[in-house]
Each structure stands twice: as structure tokens, then as C-alpha cells.
């Protein structure tokens, strides 16, 4: 009785093994996949309803020292193909006319969109395909490029980070910490678009150096990607500033400075530390290098139920002075310190006010995520929706103030008075 049972089991096991060998269903062998790290989306030139898709495919053999990998040195680290398709889901099959391996989005890190396409009304439809596809995650990044994404990808040749996924990951991490670009997750994009209240800020980059501005000695803070002049032997691609999306359509770009201010005003997305120059109040000639860090939460006092709603915003920051070219000794002089503080406060508040005014006048709503704070003032969704943040925002009276707390004055507090030396 029992023996036949075991024979039976053996038969089952055999059929099991057959199944195993046949390799079926969801089984995928990792080495038979083409790992797309970035997808580029452009408007197709001829057909309005089609998109031009660019794939950046990573070559796994590059950068691997393991045995059995074979001749990694001879192969390029990446492969780029561009073609026209209906969407980036069906394009996976189309790509197989060129690429031998099966396309997978498992390693997809970044979605690159050209500025032209982002300004197109139909852009949102294609982007929402991402929610349907199983392999696309909600935490991938969005990057807006000035030029066509296909040429951007080709021009983008990082010298030291040859593996493309590593390059993008590190770039975004660093950019966010330095406050140069926003974090721009797909998740946040969807959320903000669906909530229909704020602006979404996406990272902005380009591979084209803008020659027009090269003549002028432009303040780097006022620049966006493509306007900064880099020399030397490096990648031509720049990431700086941000692209603003209103209701899923790109409307404008922000400069580096504006991006940073936006971070400081944001209740949750705080940069770690911003290195920047502020004018020296004691000598107009010089600039003081400072490190600005947020000092706790941005404080809001919202009064939205009034006829003209008002918002009081207080931004607490810590400013550390890193250079002191004028040689003024404020480290030991409390009066000078107060003056310095006031000048910082004025300067930053002015900048804030300019930006807020710009958002109120030009955009009609803000990229600071304030609507989330405003929501707390309402009890019911219906009240909130009838308040209509996007409509009300331009009329809100906004008062910004900055609370500066001076931090360290560098490693060495006192400064050599250069004038004295020259004497």
C-alpha cells in the first residue's frame, strides 16, 4: 500500500521536473534581459498621437570583475536606441527588432522627458501608462531636458560613473542634498497632479551649453541647466534648476536660486545644507560665503476663513559664515553680528517675497507644498474643494519672515585684516 504511494510520488516528481525544465510562465533568466535604466519620451515629429521613445540600456558586463563575465573591456557600458511607438508599454516588443534581449523595466531609474513634450497637453496620458505597468515603480525620477531626449542621452557620457543606473542614482541624491534640483519622484508627480492644488517641480537638465549667456558674467545662482560654464574634460550634461508642472503640464523653469528658496519654504522637503554667497553688509564689494541650513520646521499661521485669506510664514534658518573677504571682525562684535543677521534676514526675505510674488502672479499656485498645510484648516473635503486652493492662492495675502540664527564663523573665527597687512 505504502510502496505504491511512493512510486506515485516519484511519478509526480518526474512530471514536476519536466515542468521545471520547460521553463515557463513568469520565469526569466537574468542574463537574457536588457535592463532599461532610462526611458526618454519625445513627441513624434509627424504623428501627434505617437511618441518617440529612447531607451538607455545598461550593459551588465561593464564594471564587473567577476569571472565568467568575459570580455567586458571591449563592450560599451550602454546601448541607446530611439524609435517611434504608440506608448512605452508596447515599445518593449518593438525594441526587439533591434535589441536581441527581452526588454525589462526592472532597473528603470529615470524617466526623461523633453521640455517640448512636457509642455504638450497629451503628455499626461502617456505618463499615466506607468501606473499600469507592473515593472515600473512609483519611486522612479522624472527629468526634464531642454533638448530632445534622444540627443540628450547620447550626449550624456559620464566619465567616471560608467554604469548608468549608478550615475543617475548618485546624481539625484547629491543634487537633492545640495538643493540644486528637486527630488522629483513619479509618485509625487502623480500625487500633486491628482490633488490638483500645488505645482510639481521636476529636475531640469541639458547637455547643451548655452552659448548666448557665455558672454555675460552671469551669477551662477541665477542660472538654470545649460547656462553654467564648465571647462575641463568632463561630461557636458548639467543638472540645475527645476521644471514646474501645473496640472500635469510644464509651465516654466526655476533657476538654482529659486529652487533653493523653494526648498526652504517647503514644509517637508528640506535640503541638508546649501552653500551660497550673500552680499556683505559691511562692504558692498564683497560677498560672504555661507552655509544655510533649515533650523526646524517652517512655521505657518494660516487664516483662510477671512474675506482675503492670509498666511504668515516664518522660515527659521541657521547661517554659517564660511568666508569673510572684507575682513570685518564680526565674530567678536555683537553689534556687528546683529547687523549681519538683519542684513541676512532682509536679503533672504526679499528673495522669498520675489519668488512668492512670481508664483502668485505668473503661475497661479505654488510649488512649496503649502496646500498640505492649508488642508489642516478644513474639516471636510467638500469645504476644502470649494475653497479651491488653485483659484484662491493668487489672492492670498502672504507675509514671509525669516528667522536667522547665526552658526559658527568657520573653523577660525577671526580674520586677518588685509588692509593692515598691506600697510
Amino acid at each position, binding site marked *: 500500500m505504502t510502496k505504491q504511494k511512493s512510486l506515485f510520488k516519484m511519478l509526480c516528481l518526474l512530471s514536476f521536473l519536466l515542468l521545471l525544465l520547460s521553463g515557463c510562465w513568469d*520565469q526569466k533568466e537574468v542574463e537574457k534581459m536588457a535592463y532599461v535604466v532610462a526611458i526618454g519620451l519625445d513627441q513624434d515629429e509627424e504623428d501627434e498621437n505617437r511618441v518617440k521613445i529612447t531607451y538607455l540600456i545598461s550593459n*551588465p558586463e561593464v564594471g*564587473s570583475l567577476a569571472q565568467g563575465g568575459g570580455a567586458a573591456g571591449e563592450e560599451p557600458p550602454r546601448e541607446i536606441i530611439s524609435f517611434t511607438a504608440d506608448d512605452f508599454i508596447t515599445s518593449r516588443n518593438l525594441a526587439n527588432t533591434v535589441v536581441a534581449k527581452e526588454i525589462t523595466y526592472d532597473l528603470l531609474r529615470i524617466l526623461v522627458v523633453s521640455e517640448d513634450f512636457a509642455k504638450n497637453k497629451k503628455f499626461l496620458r502617456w505618463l499615466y501608462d506607468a501606473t499600469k505597468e507592473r515593472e515600473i515603480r512609483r519611486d522612479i525620477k522624472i527629468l526634464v531636458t531642454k533638448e530632445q531626449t534622444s540627443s540628450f542621452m547620447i550626449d550624456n557620457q559620464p566619465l567616471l560613473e560608467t554604469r548608468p543606473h549608478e550615475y543617475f542614482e548618485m546624481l539625484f541624491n547629491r543634487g537633492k542634498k545640495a538643493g540644486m534640483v528637486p527630488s522629483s519622484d513619479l509618485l509625487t508627480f502623480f500625487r500633486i497632479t491628482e490633488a490638483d492644488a500645488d505645482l510639481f517641480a521636476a529636475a531640469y537638465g541639458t547637455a547643451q551649453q548655452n552659448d548666448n549667456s557665455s558672454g555675460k558674467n552671469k551669477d551662477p545662482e541665477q542660472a538654470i541647466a545649460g547656462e553654467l560654464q564648465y571647462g575641463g574634460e568632463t561630461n557636458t550634461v548639467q543638472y540645475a534648476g527645476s521644471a514646474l508642472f501645473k496640472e500635469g503640464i510644464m509651465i516654466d523653469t526655476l533657476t538654482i536660486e529659486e529652487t533653493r528658496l523653494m526648498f526652504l519654504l517647503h514644509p517637508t522637503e528640506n535640503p541638508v545644507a546649501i552653500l551660497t554667497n550673500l552680499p556683505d553688509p559691511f562692504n558692498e564689494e564683497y560677498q560672504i560665503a555661507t552655509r544655510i541650513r533649515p533650523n526646524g520646521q517652517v512655521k505657518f499661521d494660516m487664516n483662510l476663513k477671512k474675506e482675503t485669506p492670509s498666511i504668515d510664514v516664518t522660515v527659521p534658518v541657521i547661517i554659517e559664515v564660511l568666508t569673510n573677504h572684507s575682513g570685518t571682525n564680526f565674530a567678536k562684535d555683537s553689534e556687528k553680528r546683529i547687523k549681519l543677521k538683519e542684513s541676512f534676514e532682509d536679503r533672504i526675505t526679499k528673495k522669498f517675497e520675489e519668488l512668492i510674488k512670481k508664483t502668485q502672479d505668473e503661475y497661479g499656485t505654488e510649488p512649496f507644498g503649502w496646500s498640505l498645510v492649508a488642508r489642516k484648516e478644513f474639516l471636510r473635503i467638500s469645504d476644502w474643494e470649494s475653497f479651491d486652493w488653485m483659484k484662491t492662492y493668487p489672492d492670498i495675502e502672504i507675509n514671509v519672515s525669516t528667522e536667522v540664527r547665526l552658526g559658527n564663523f568657520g573653523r577660525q573665527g577671526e580674520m586677518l585684516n588685509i588692509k593692515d597687512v598691506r600697510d
Partner: protein
Amino acid sequence: MLKKLLKKVYSKKPNVPEKSSTEDILRKEIQLDGNLEQTLGFFKEIYSYPDNQDFVIRNIHINGMSKKAALIYIWTITDVTLIDQHILTPLIRNNSTSSKIEDIVSIQSVDTKNVIKDILPEINKGSAALIIEGDPQAYLFSVTNFEGRGVEKSENETVVKGPKEAFTEKSSTNISLIRKKIKNENLVVESLTITERSKNDLFIIYEKDLANEKLVENVRERVNSLQVDAIQNLSLLEQHIEERKFSIFPTVLYTERPDRAASFIEDGYIVLIMDNSPACLVLPATFWSFYHSSEDHYLRFHYGNFTRLLRIIALFITLFTSAIYVGVVTYHAEMIPPDLLLAIAATRERVPFPAAIEVIIMELAFELIREAGLRVPSPIGPTIGIVGALILGQAAVQANIVSPIVVIVVALGGLSSFAVGDISMNFSIRLTRFLFLLVASLFGIYGMAALFTFGIFYLVSLKSFGVPYLAPLTPKYVSSGDTIFRRVLQYEMYRPGYVKPKDIKKK
């Protein structure tokens, strides 16, 4: 259909001509009648004297009684000096006429039997039988001396801290090793003859005032109901008395450490001992008794639990690493951190097999090396290990048959499998690992979760002599709480409730 066919094949009894042995059986029923010559004739026939080399009949004349007598024994299993000094010499030198045999012979235990059938087993056990002319009974002197190893270090369950002695093949030694640890009049050593032909003895050891009577009765019944010709040792007995013969998990604990046996007895368990087995069986056994080792308690609290932690990790690594590798690489590639994924993809680029087959090849190779290492004569052993592990792995990688990551995965799993010391549990885990590997290659993580749930259902439904296999984890019982981790000794206050001991609280 198929089932019926199979049934037919297996239910057939082989047709081998058997020779009748009724004559032999009848002869054994004969009672002694005082006729020395005739009786000796029977014995000579039964033992095929003089063909049988170690069967001895020593004819003597007892002076005092002035009777002829004969001493019968098997010299290879008796203590010859004992016979010489304490039986033969007193008998021959004895002059008083009236004294009884018991008074003449200075041997420690004397028994009398008068049916040949009853005498034979005693002789087979190493007793000497004295038959006297005109006396219708035989005197049986216990002079057993089986040869065996001395008490040695335990080899399979080694400890660093704690007693090193192990059971030997001699049951009397083994019992004395246990008695050495439990000096209590309640320790009962029951003896049973369990087989029909070889007359193998089994000793059931338990503490009378601890062990549950029903459990002891259950064991007795199960052992008595065996209808087998011969069970040479405990390893075979284990397979005769376990409940589910096809279960992949062991349900009877086999240990070679007397200290472990003694501590089980002190918790109300039952221990079985047989000649020819350098070990004992402990029952009932739960999953935890296979997972634990005696050193866990000899080491201090933290150290002991640290080894426990390592062991449970090793157990899971053994079970899951290769399966997870296959499942993840073929079904859930997205969960691997990108650098690792690309590295795996790069190394697999030139490997001709699918990941599942690759891992199975490597696993089989590892098991082969392991089995070979166990069987080869010991001088060659290390060489096999080095050749197998290093050269084979390295060469296989260079020849692009397997990828280096698979070598790591398999070696890690193989290494960890040694952490589970019990040989039976070790096998069950190694076999289960292959099951996991199979389902992982069919269904990925889903399959593994299914098999895991299935396995837990199976474990939970297993019982060893009525005790749930995962007790006291679930179902809950009063116990010392010694499952995955152990407690501080002072807090291990209770004997395990699932064996239903008579005295639940330890003092």
C-alpha cells in the same frame, strides 16, 4: 488502474521452498529428566557440537555428591576465569556430601530452569549451565562477558564544555553510565526480549515517579507488538517503532550522550537502550529535541543562546538560500539591488544552463563531495575535500559551467547544514532544501511560501508518541520554555507538560 496494478506487484509473496523445522522446535520443548547423557546429547545436537567451535561442554565429577556433571557454556561470551575460579574449582574440590549447589559455587547469581527452551537463551546470553546426573534441572550461572569498547569520547555530538563520555555497544555499561548520573531508586530499567529469533533485549529506562504511565505502557505495547526475527540495534528499532515511516522528519531522538539521555529521563521522557548500539533512543521527541544540543545548556545563558541563534540562522540558510537565489533570479529580479543584479547577469552571461539547473547541479555536486568524504578511508578524506571544494568549484567557474555566485550560494547552504548536529534532522533539512529548490524554480517566492505553509501544516500535524511535534511552541504546554532560545536555568522550572510527567515542577 495504475494503483491496482502496482498493488498486485507488491502483494505477491515470493515462492521460496522452506524446510520444515518442526523437529528442532519439538526438541526444545523437552523437560530435563536427570539423564545426563541424554540431555547432553540434546544440547550437542542443538548447538551442532563439535562443529560449533566456541560451544564448550566440560564434564566434571563432583566429589562431595559423587555425581557426574557437565558445565555447558559458550566461551567467547563468558568470563572464563570466573568459571574456573568460582565454579569449577569449588565444585571439584568440594567434599561435603550434603551441601547444595548454591552453597558450593561462589558465583553472584544462580538460577534454575528445567525446560531446554528456557535454558537456551540464557546460554546464548553468556551464562554457564550446570547439569547434574539425577537432577531434573539445570543451574544457570551468570558469567557473561561480551567483548566491547571501553567508554570513549562522543564523536558525533561533540562538546567543548561538558562531559565527553559516550555510550558504548554494551548495554550494561550504558545503563551504568545513566545510573551514574541519576542515583535514584525510582530509576527503572525494564528489560524485554523483543525479537523472536535473535532474542534481542531492549531496556526501557525511565523514572517511575516522573514518567507518564500511559506513555510507558504505549512504548511497551508498541515494542511487544513487534513481530520481527531480529533487530540488531537501536537504529533499526527506531524505524520499527516510529509512527510515520514515510515522514521526512524524525520522531525518535537518537543520541550517543549519556548526559543528554539522563537529562531527558529527569524530564519524564523514556529512554531505550540495546546492546550493540553506542547510543540510546529518547521518546517522545519533538522538533526542538533535534534542534537542541547538550552544550546549549552547559554554556552560560548568553553564550548558549548565541549558539542557538547561529543554529537557527544556519537552519534557515540551509533551507532557503539556494531556493531564494533561484526564485529571486528567475522570478523577482527587481528585488535585487541593481549592482548585484547586473553582477549576476554578467556572470551568468556565458553559463549555458538556466539558473535552476545550475544550482541543482552544484547542490548535487556538493552532496556528492559530502557523501564521498564520509565514505572514503580517512587518509584520503581531506584530499577529497580539497579537490572537491576548491578545484572543482574553481574549475567549474572557469569553464563557465556555473557562475561564481552560485558557488557561494551553494557553499553557504552546505556549510550551514552542518550546524544542525542531529543526523536525522540534518537529512530532513537537506532533503527539504531540494523541495524548496524545486518549487522556487516553478513558482518563485509564491511557491516557496506555499511549500513553507504546507510544511508547517505538516509539522504541526506530526506526533511523536502522542506528543505534537512543535510542542511546547504550539500547542502551548507548561514547560521550561526551551524552544528556539533557552531561559536562565533558574527560570526553567517546569518539566515539559506535553509528556505529562507526574511531577511537573522541578525543584
